[in-house]
């Protein structure tokens, strides 16, 4: 699994790519750890761009929810964007659509979590 991230003001957009199955779930956990510990301020957010994720197992979903708990305890938010159809199905079957904010794309997610981050994102894309 590949992983990259980029900061936009008070939001970190993280981009995992590949299958988040049992062997890869730990990689995701390790990649997210420094972001969760230090990179997101209170009232900030983590947006996960899932456009490159083709599958996620229960272990991967567990890591997302653990991240959500950690962020919410720090008064920050988490959102997931751009789910592929199969991954969207898995989120529905696992009822993760009830416990995580899900958006059709990163820009829409940023619209909902941070105006300054959205402006920075649009500026970077221009």
């Amino acid at each position, binding site marked *: 699994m590949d992983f990259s991230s980029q900061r936009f003001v008070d939001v970190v957009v993280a981009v995992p790519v590949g299958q988040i199955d049992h062997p890869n779930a730990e990689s995701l956990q390790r990649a997210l750890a420094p972001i969760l510990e230090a990179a997101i301020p209170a009232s900030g957010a983590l947006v996960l761009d899932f456009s490159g994720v083709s599958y996620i197992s*229960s272990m991967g*979903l*567990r890591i997302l929810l653990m991240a959500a708990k950690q962020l919410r305890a720090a008064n920050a938010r988490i959102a997931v964007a751009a789910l592929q159809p199969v991954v969207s*199905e898995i989120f529905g*079957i696992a*009822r993760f659509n*009830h*416990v995580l904010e899900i958006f059709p794309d990163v820009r829409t997610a940023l619209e909902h979590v941070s105006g300054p981050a959205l402006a920075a994102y649009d500026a970077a894309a221009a």
Partner: protein
Amino acid sequence: MMRIRFWGTRGSLPVALTASGVRDKVIAALRAAAGRTFATDAELASFVDGLGLPVSGSYGGHTSCVEIETGGPDYVLCDLGTGVRPFGQKALARHGPGMPQTYHIFMSHVHWDHIMGFPFFTPAYIPGNRIRIYGGHEELELAFRRQQAAPSFPVEFAALGADIEFVHLHPGRQYDIAGLQVNLMLQRHAGDSFGYRFSAGGRSVVYTTDSEHTLEDAKETGIYVNFFRDADLVIFDAMYSLADTISVKADWGHSSNIVGVELCQLAGARQLCLFHHEPIHGDAAIDRVLAETRRYEEITRSGQPLLVTAAYDGMEIEL
């Protein structure tokens, strides 16, 4: 050959189909009939059978009780939820009170929903019957005696006429009971629970209810996978959604359909049977979980297909 017969499949507490639930089923059936007529009763019955369980029947509401028919003379059961009452009536109707029988009963644990049927198990009142209650808990006998003690129940345990014996089992040992090889496994649940693997004639069934399988710890997962290995049937506690088991219902001691599929796939099991249904779920909700679980199995399949079923009161599975 083993035949598994489900007498109670509901988790936590028994539920009953309500008047409005019946009304909804009648409306759905009439809508499906769309004004057609039926020339014979057989034609009508065939139409009704084709409507699907949520419309033509129900998943039922008795708490956990599963029979394993071995082909031998003795009865074998898992747990003594309210499903044991109709089981007892059926056994009595078959043999009559004058023909003593032997009942071997394996207890996952002694939480109330798993023992509450026993005071209504009529064979326990009849002298001559032999009842052997097996389990891994030290408090096994205490739990049964206490639930029938005053003021909770009018008939004391000591008044039961059958020959009742409690037998402690230990994980890691194999037992030969009623023609079955029996292994048990400690599970994650408040106060502990035990899963069982029963084998005979080259067939195996795993009964794992009231167990919170998290897959968080690779070593622990490996132990469960080995216990499930190549089982013909895994009867699995799928009470909650995965999201619930990680969030609001974490540490409540139950598992999800998704983890059931993943464990069975890792173990090469042939059939996953969803069990210990959430009592707030109606028939349509359970049926939806079944359809979604089958879809998840399809999405994640890499080897042989895993057959996915959902237990209902009265269901039989032949192995």
